[in-house]
């Protein structure tokens, strides 16, 4: 978390995020960008199986999930991640998405974002999905 974000202790606690992407540079960039935006990055994983381990260990509020990864893909990880933590907010973050990917994410109710150098859409989407999940969990 950035020093600015740490200093701001009066607001709600930062959203705890797990980053899942097989490209180390993408993980590094997302960590820096999201920490600048006040998120708490609790873990990183390079494939779906490592994501399950990290989710079990850190119980994140949100997961940024790449879809095409060696080993267990993002597609395969969505169901067990939700089984492990029902209220976790998952945002699919991928380089390209054809019809199949878009339909599959819509069917699973997972918002989909295309990778971009600008982190603003991702930041907004994480906040939106976490807020929606929190609202849905409130009796």
């Amino acid at each position, binding site marked *: 978390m950035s020093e600015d974000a740490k200093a701001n202790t009066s607001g709600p606690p930062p959203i705890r995020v797990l980053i899942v992407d097989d490209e180390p*540079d*993408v993980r590094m960039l997302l960590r*820096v*960008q999201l920490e600048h935006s006040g998120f708490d990055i609790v873990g990183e994983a390079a494939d779906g199986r490592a994501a399950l381990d990290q989710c079990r260990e850190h119980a994140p509020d949100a997961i940024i999930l790449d879809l095409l990864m060696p080993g267990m893909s993002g597609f395969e990880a969505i169901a067990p991640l939700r089984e492990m933590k029902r209220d976790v907010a998952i945002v699919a973050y991928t380089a390209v998405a054809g019809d199949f990917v878009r339909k599959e994410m819509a069917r699973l109710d997972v918002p989909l974002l295309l990778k971009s150098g600008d982190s603003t859409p991702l930041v907004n989407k994480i906040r939106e999905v976490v807020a929606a999940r929190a609202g849905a969990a409130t009796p």
Partner: protein
Amino acid sequence: MGRLAHRTRSSADLYLVRIMDDAPSEAARAREEIDAIRRRVINVVGHAFRTPVTTLCGMAETLAHTDDAATRAALAEGVIRNARLVERLLDQLLLAADVSTVLPVGDATDVDVEAATRAAWDCLDTCNPMVVDAPGITARVRPAALEHILLLVLDNADKYGDGDVVVKATTSHPWSAIEIESTGAIPSDEEMAEAFELFYRGEHAVMRTAGIGVGLPVARKLAEIEGGNVTLFRRGDAVVARIELPA
């Protein structure tokens, strides 16, 4: 689709014009094949470039707004890494479009295979291990051609293997054979058969890493120009790329 996959656009179009005179329905099928190839090429290239280009943009922008020295250094290294990746992808694309852009000049000479293998591996900038066993083995080729062939085939083994890449060379006159063995997920029969099609990327390759599917086809073309060949086969749990060149 395979029938046309190796044709350039111009030769494919000439083919189309020729058969249009004979059979309109065959012309329509050929046009569909050509359109499918074009879509495949655009899709593969777009996919391969998107992650490094967006990463590059994000890192450059973030770098400009970051004060922490360690973070700045890490981002700067990332910018260089991704710029080099984009450069390599562009080189491969140009090679695929016209292999003559890298055809070496000069005459064939006896090239030390082990030294050429180590030099090519160093160019890949990878952390993965590689073992080479080719004492005293030479190939009679133009040095730059062997360098390109090895670079392309080793890059493939590095990207799609899970463990050590093992290189072994032998000579049985008039040929020298260089076998590059890697373990990992084994491609299907279809993927093995299509591996030398330009811009073909199997499911295993797509799930594994970015790429544009030109490494093995271009390596084979270069080997053929030098009087040899590149083939791909399985050996137990490993995939072996075999480069045969004049000894």
